[in-house]
């Protein structure tokens, strides 16, 4: 993966110099790769936590890991996957690609960009230090056990003594500041540094969605940071923001947290939308259907997602009118999301679909996001939510959205752009193993959770009694989890094998149309020998098909 900054030095330099080059780099591509590597590392950690969770739930009344460890595991699993797997992976891919796609030489603030990465990594390190620290109350390795949502007053000093929760607060808030720097940088880059002639309505859809994504980060993360500072003040300065016993409000935390937490769902899924908006056209050999409505739908999602947070709070006893409003607003978000799904499907129509690994992941994303989206409509139906929220049905729903949706597409993106970043192709054969194991394992794991949820199984329970009809479904889930684990293993094997002995990629292995394919693979540190002037949404199509260029139709 070593990318030559300047040809002669890296080939002969010893490891230390290389490492020094990576640590001190301000090149957006290297920073992007480091984000992705960080995300792979935490994916393994979070995945092991998930497997332990599934092992504990294999049989009723299991005593394998016990309540405290289990509660720590699901807290760490959720926090890790959201803040340290999906976020860095999307940040890394965007960091790598956006400047290439808009044809510029770097991001607007390269040093800020580096700072952002180190803050994110630092946040992850802070969070995981908890496993190595002693604690007067819980002994060695006291991870937070309050859930990734950290509801007050369970996190208040009265109920969460010891330092565990502080690791959660510090780790996530530091990485949150990292996310903010990334967002500022990305917005500035996209708005001011596009190639000559490239209008905002001609940038690739991935860039469009990352623009909205970055904007959402800018709006959603500050309230989280504010809430976390309030919680720290509660814990150490005797404040009572979230302490009902002294006039604080337990629900204030939920409002602040979900005002971040719901947009966060879209922050995690918009880059996925963007990625498959690039993959599906290329592997269908067709232009995306309805570019303008795609971009407009993205903006609509960005706006509406800021007004639906209390649909996570239908059971807390809000006013009927509030419930009705948040229900309707949540339904509303189905419209732009639906437009996107229809447009992707329509893009397939009449195409020549090439079933390469990136395309498989994109189609896998489509089918599973469809399921996740439809169960989302069920959850927005308030009375139904009263039954199924906080049950395994909900667990199934958000994993279909965030794993089957977001992570599948992000992995598809890794397959699609790996040749660009490394100059090597990933193996199709190992890619097929990866995809199918992941797809089958995923559906075995999360499909049955719909059923166990409807059968009354609440989430976040370390054990359950026999005779509720849950054993069978939990066992199917656990089997699925391990199949999926093997799938991920193939992913890493594929990367390792292909890096050593992968086929040479060439500049444009997929015969694609966006600007990142107009430079060498891997690109030089300055990105382009020559910056192309852009006249349409598919500059390379124009180049390859001078007889029928795109700008005639726009």
């Amino acid at each position, binding site marked *: 993966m070593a990318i030559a900054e300047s040809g002669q030095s890296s080939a002969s330099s010893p490891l230390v110099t290389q490492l020094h080059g990576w640590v001190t780099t301000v090149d957006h591509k290297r920073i992007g790769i480091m984000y992705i590597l960080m995300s792979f590392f935490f994916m393994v950690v979070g995945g092991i936590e998930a497997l332990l969770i599934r092992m504990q739930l294999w049989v009723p009344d299991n005593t394998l890991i016990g309540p405290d460890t289990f*509660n720590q595991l699901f807290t760490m699993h959720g926090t890790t996957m959201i803040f340290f797997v999906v976020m860095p992976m999307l940040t890394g891919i965007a960091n790598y690609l956006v400047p290439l796609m808009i044809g510029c030489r770097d991001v607007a603030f390269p040093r800020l960009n580096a700072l952002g990465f180190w803050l994110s990594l630092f946040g992850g390190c802070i969070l995981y230090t908890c496993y190595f620290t002693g604690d007067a109350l819980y002994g060695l390795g006291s991870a937070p056990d309050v859930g990734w949502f950290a509801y007050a007053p369970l996190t208040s000093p009265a109920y969460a003594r010891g330092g565990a929760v502080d690791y959660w607060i510090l780790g996530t808030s530091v990485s949150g500041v990292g996310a903010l720097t990334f967002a500022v940088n990305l917005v500035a880059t996209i708005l001011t540094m596009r190639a000559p002639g490239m209008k905002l309505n001609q940038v690739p859809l991935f860039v469009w969605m990352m623009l909205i994504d970055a904007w959402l980060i800018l709006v959603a993360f500050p309230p989280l940071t504010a809430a976390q500072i309030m919680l720290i003040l509660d814990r150490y300065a005797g404040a009572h923001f979230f302490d009902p016993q002294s006039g604080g409000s337990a629900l204030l935390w939920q409002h602040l947290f979900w005002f971040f937490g719901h947009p966060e769902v879209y922050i995690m899924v918009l880059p996925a939308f963007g990625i498959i908006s690039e993959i599906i056209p290329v592997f269908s050999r067709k232009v995306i259907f309805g570019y303008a409505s795609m971009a407009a739908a993205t903006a609509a999602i960005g706006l509406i997602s800021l007004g639906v947070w209390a649909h996570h709070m239908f059971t807390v006893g809000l006013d009927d009118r509030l419930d009705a409003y948040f229900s309707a607003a949540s339904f509303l978000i189905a419209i732009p999301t639906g437009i996107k799904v229809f447009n992707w499907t329509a893009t397939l129509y009449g195409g020549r679909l090439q079933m390469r690994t990136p395309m498989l992941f994109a189609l896998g994303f489509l089918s599973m996001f469809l399921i996740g989206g439809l169960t989302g409509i069920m959850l927005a139906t308030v009375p139904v939510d009263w039954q199924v929220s906080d049950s395994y049905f909900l667990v199934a729903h958000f994993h279909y959205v965030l794993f089957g949706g977001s992570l599948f597409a992000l992995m598809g993106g890794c397959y699609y752009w790996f040749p660009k970043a490394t100059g090597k192709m990933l193996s199709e054969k190992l890619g097929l193993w990866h995809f199918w194991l992941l797809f089958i394992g995923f559906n075995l794991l999360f499909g049955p959770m719909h059923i166990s949820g409807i059968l009354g199984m609440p989430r976040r329970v370390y054990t359950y009694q026999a005779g509720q009809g849950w054993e069978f479904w939990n066992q199917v889930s656990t089997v699925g989890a391990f199949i999926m684990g093997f799938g991920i293993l193939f992913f890493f094997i594929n990367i390792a094998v292909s890096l050593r002995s992968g086929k040479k990629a060439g500049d444009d292995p997929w015969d694609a149309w966006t600007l990142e394919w107009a430079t060498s693979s891997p690109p030089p540190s300055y990105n382009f020998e020559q910056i192309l002037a852009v006249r349409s949404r598919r500059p390379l199509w124009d180049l390859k098909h001078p007889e029928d260029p795109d700008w005639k139709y726009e």
Partner: protein
Amino acid sequence: MRELRKGRFRQTCYGMMRWPLALALVACCPLLATAQSPDMFNPSSPDAAEIRELFYLVLAISAIIFLLVGGALAYFIVRFRDPPGAPRDDTEPPQIYGSQPIEIAWTLAPTLIVFVLSLVVIRSVIAMRSDPPEAGVIRVRAVGHQWWWEFEYPDYGFTTANELVIPSSEVDAEKPVYLQLESADVIHSFWIPKLAGKTDLVPGQTNRMRLQADTPGLYEGRCAEYCGTQHARMLIRVNAVEMAEFEKWIENQKRPAVVAPGVEAGRQIFMDQACANCHTIRGEPAVGKFGPDLTHLMSRETIAAGVLENNRENLSDWLADPDHAKPGSRMPNMRLSPTEVKQLVDYLMTLE
């Protein structure tokens, strides 16, 4: 080429049909086999039944959309995929940039669905939110604790724990019970799937809920909001009984505890050790409020919030080491000797 595609398509369709059939079979067997599970598909109250109907409605809409979109997706994949082994074809297919009428159509259709759904939801939310109780309706104040339930019957002046007894509706009259939900510490959630959706118990706030059981029976439920170490073992049992039996139960619960002869040693341990600091036994000096009211302990079928059957053996184990049965439980280990445990259980067993 076309024939090749057609053949493949037919073959794939047959292949795909096998899956839903097999899945449906797999899905049905356990569903039928475990009528005991606390699921929302066998409701026993008007509210739970209405939620099920709503669920079916949204499920049907979702299923139609899923079949349409998923079907189109599957069809396009099969129909337009590059057949492996076919000669390489380098021409690009016709480029379709979009179509305004189609895009407008598939914006308007979901908008319509969403609008109608919203109206349906608003209607049923208003119908199902409970009003303040009318006179004569049975009220229960339910308080969530880490990790057990306190049920106070304010109109009758007694408190019980973990097992809620309510009258079941009779042929001629509905017998709803109004719950006033509060929390003593962190957020909990009260969930009996067969009787109603869940409602949270939020500290510093009082929530309301209507609970009704159409038929007598035992309804199981549990805390649904993560509340700490033993969240998993904070079970609720709702025992719906006929009115006559309910009144008999009320009469018994209203009585203060009577000290039976021959258990003075155990009673003394209870009052001298810290037990009395946390537990109440009405009519006795024990007035603690942190733990369950034990005045009529033996009228309950379970102990430790539904985790253990209430019998001599389990009570002894529980007193000897609460952490063994329910690790992390707030009940401290009093380090009683086996004789003391026996005497204490002798006493507790008289609290009927």
